[in-house]
């Protein structure tokens, strides 16, 4: 028995202009548009505000969202929502804006502090209508039941898991990816690949998530390089948008693994890009996990376009790892934690905390704090 949850999805070029109408259909009158400076500067907030105006909806803008959104920001966002008398939320942006929007929604409907909802199924009251417009093709948050928020006191990323966090409508417009810098495209693209691989080998994977994960991996492996290479490769952008969506659907339902568990922990401590951390950790985690499900890793290699004929599952798996590493090199992603500014002294603590992350649960190979520490040490340089 398994379950597959996903929001309504609108996909396609120009769909961003549907955002307002989507909200209206959900009964909204006054929308809180949650976004960040970068997205505003890139000009993607305007079409959303415009679509609201056209749909006859009042709109209030909230843009105080940082790279790793904090509880304080989420609370401020919820406060703005209440003060302005909003009744729906549109989040435009990357994972940060979307997770902030979700957290704010949880707060306005349930009150309290976002910390109260950390963990699984802690949200008790339904959330206001949520329409998500992802602009980064990476986080998958627009379709997931997760919201990751930094606890500013504990300096830790809290993972909030609830079916109620699954947005009502995800509006995916590949056109918005055109403004992304190569650097950002690379890092979010690597996040997509991490999502696809981790959810595919997850012990909670189902045939429904496998379809999504495999498709996502195949698309990303093929189109990430061209997408990073050119802002104007519309096809590559569209494929990456689809890859991100499908990877999102996969991991939202099959959950992730050790790479994300560690990445969440490091992200709570250091201002690194989520995709970068994943990119560095993924090969090491794959190596560690290889013995748990070599046949799955064989498929990963295959999906990434490797020739695995006459190779054992294990050898094929190793090829997959190489393939990921190569991809990272090709698109200029960081290769070690050290080069990002991570310090070895943080390892023991990070290892402890990472073990408690929800993503660790579905990792295909059981893992101890020492093993996490060993992985981190290997990823360090």
């Amino acid at each position, binding site marked *: 028995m398994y379950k597959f949850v996903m929001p309504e999805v609108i996909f396609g070029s120009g769909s961003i202009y549907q955002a307002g109408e989507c909200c209206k259909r959900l009964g909204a009158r006054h929308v809180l548009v949650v976004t960040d400076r970068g997205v505003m500067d890139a000009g993607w907030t305007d079409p959303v505000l415009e679509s609201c105006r056209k749909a006859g909806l009042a709109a209030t803008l909230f843009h105080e969202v940082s790279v790793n959104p904090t509880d304080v920001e989420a609370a401020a966002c919820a406060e703005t929502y209440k003060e302005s008398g909003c009744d729906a939320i549109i989040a435009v942006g990357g994972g940060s804006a979307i997770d902030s929007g979700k957290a704010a929604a949880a707060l306005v409907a349930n009150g309290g502090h976002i910390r109260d909802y950390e963990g699984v199924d802690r*949200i008790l009251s339904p959330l206001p209508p949520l329409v998500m417009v992802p602009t980064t093709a990476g986080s998958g948050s627009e379709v997931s039941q997760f919201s990751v928020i930094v606890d500013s006191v504990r300096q830790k990323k809290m993972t909030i898991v609830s*079916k109620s966090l699954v947005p009502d409508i995800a509006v995916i417009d590949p056109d918005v990816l055109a403004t992304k810098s190569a650097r950002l495209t690379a890092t979010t693209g690597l996040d997509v690949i991490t999502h696809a691989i981790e959810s595919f080998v997850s012990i909670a994977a189902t045939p429904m998530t496998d379809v999504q994960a495999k498709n996502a991996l195949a698309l990303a492996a093929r189109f990430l390089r061209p997408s990073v290479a050119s802002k104007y490769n519309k096809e590559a952008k569209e494929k990456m948008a689809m890859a991100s969506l499908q990877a999102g659907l996969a991991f939202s339902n099959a959950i992730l693994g050790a790479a994300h568990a560690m990445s969440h922990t490091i992200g709570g401590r250091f201002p690194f890009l989520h995709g970068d951390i994943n990119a560095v950790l993924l090969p090491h985690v794959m190596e560690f996990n290889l013995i748990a499900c070599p046949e799955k890793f064989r498929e990963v290699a295959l999906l990434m376009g490797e020739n695995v004929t006459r190779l054992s599952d294990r050898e094929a798996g190793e090829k997959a790892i190489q393939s990921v590493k190569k991809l990272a090199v090709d698109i200029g992603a960081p290769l070690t934690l050290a080069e990002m500014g991570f310090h070895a002294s943080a390892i023991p603590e990070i290892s402890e905390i990472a073990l408690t992350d929800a993503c660790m649960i579905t990792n295909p190979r059981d893992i101890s704090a020492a093993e996490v520490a060993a992985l981190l040490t290997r990823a360090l340089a």
Partner: protein
Amino acid sequence: MNRPEMIHLLTGVQSSKLNYYTELKKTIGELQKKNRQLEIMNTIMHSFNVNMSIQDMLKQTQETLQSVYKIDRLSLAMWEDGALKMADVYPEKASFLRKGTVLSSENSLYARVFSSGQDLLHSVQKGDDFFESEAFQALGFQSVWLFPLSSRGMITGVLGLATREIFSFSEEDRSFFDHLSGQFAVCIENARLYHEVLLSESRWASTFRAVPDSILVTDLDGTILTRNDSAAQSWPFEQTICTFLKPDRFHEAVQTELPCFEEVSIQNKVYECAYYPMLEDGELKGMIVYLKNITEKQFMQAQIIHSGQLAAIGEMAAGVAHELNNPLTAILGNAQLLLRLATNETKPLLEDIEECGKRCRTIIRSLLAFSRQEPSSFHPCSLNDAIYEALRLTGRQMEKQRIQLLIELNEQLPLVNGNLQQLSQIAVNLFINAKDACSEMQGEKRVWVKTEADQHFVYLHVQDNGCGIDADKLDEIFHPFFTTKSAHNGTGLGLSVSIGIAESHGGTLTVKSQPQKGSTFTLALPVLERTE
């Protein structure tokens, strides 16, 4: 939690995205419940009235609550005379601790709630060791929810809700019951105050009713509004005082608004009657008619006067008799001497002088007897003997008048301490009076003479079927010189002398009479006390 369980939770077949429909339903449900609660509160409070018993209040509450809460028992503990005591319980059959049981022990849940002022939801457990545990278990309760009752800032008791099923509740329920207990406390307090007032009022009412004098409250026309027990006994059916009281004084009191008094006689009784105007805020609202029966008192007063009169007359008579005795002896002696020398012409005149002289002597002797100037000695003697003596003296006269004498003397009659001559004088007087009363009557004339005794007295009844005595004369016949007879027959001294003798013997002489039917005189003398 193990890993498969965690995964299950994460991917969650059991959990779903919450939606507003359920939320709305919940809200509406809560609103409806709230409305029902308000309705209940309203119904309960309106159905209460101050003179309702607490038992009825509990019953009403439980029945009204039924539509929302299945409460199996409502109980009350109240602070009374310095202790928290078990009070009413509804339904009554669901009580274990008797009414009045003191809940002071430290492990009493009721007492805990009473002293903390905080409600307490207790789920009954097997090993519970509270004061009430045995009761709860015996009655099969699963949950007991206790609320403090506070009225005017004071905790006055504890309201208990008990259920045989486990009671699950929300914060809303708590505030509802909290509110309910508050209202309840106020109602109980009101009822208590009301009963207190009622009690003191009923105390007044019973005082009013118990006053031995008659009290009637009337309106300004004399229509009776209320009467106390004594008045109700004398005038049970009268609608207005005008049927038994002359209204003059009443009207005077109404006009002057000042109390008025009068003495009235109603049905052979004498009353001191007072009319007290009833003023409310300076306005005359009615009249209190206060009737004090003074018949007895007046009778006693009359007797005192009477005996005073007798004494005075006695003294005077003794003097007069003494003074008259000597001249009368001279008159009688001379008349008798002259009679011997009388001629035919003078003889009748002298005989008349002698006759009148003798009559005077009789009167003087009676007067002397009356004034008890003659010394008398008392001995144990039989009243019967005195009667025989009297009959011997008067029998012939009775016969002459053809009066039938019916004599019924108790041979076992106890002795009395007295003077035989004096007692037979009483009997003579009574027989002669009886004879006189019969003389003018037509038909058969009868006189009954009867003696009897009880523990303390011996009685002589002399009854005749003669002319009888008018009611207004009954008092006067005992006065000296009162007579209705012609100068030849009556001196008016017989009864007054007799009553004097009776009293000197420690006895009484009384009369009952019906005009034209006859009279009965009764002499009562105390039985001789034997010192054994």
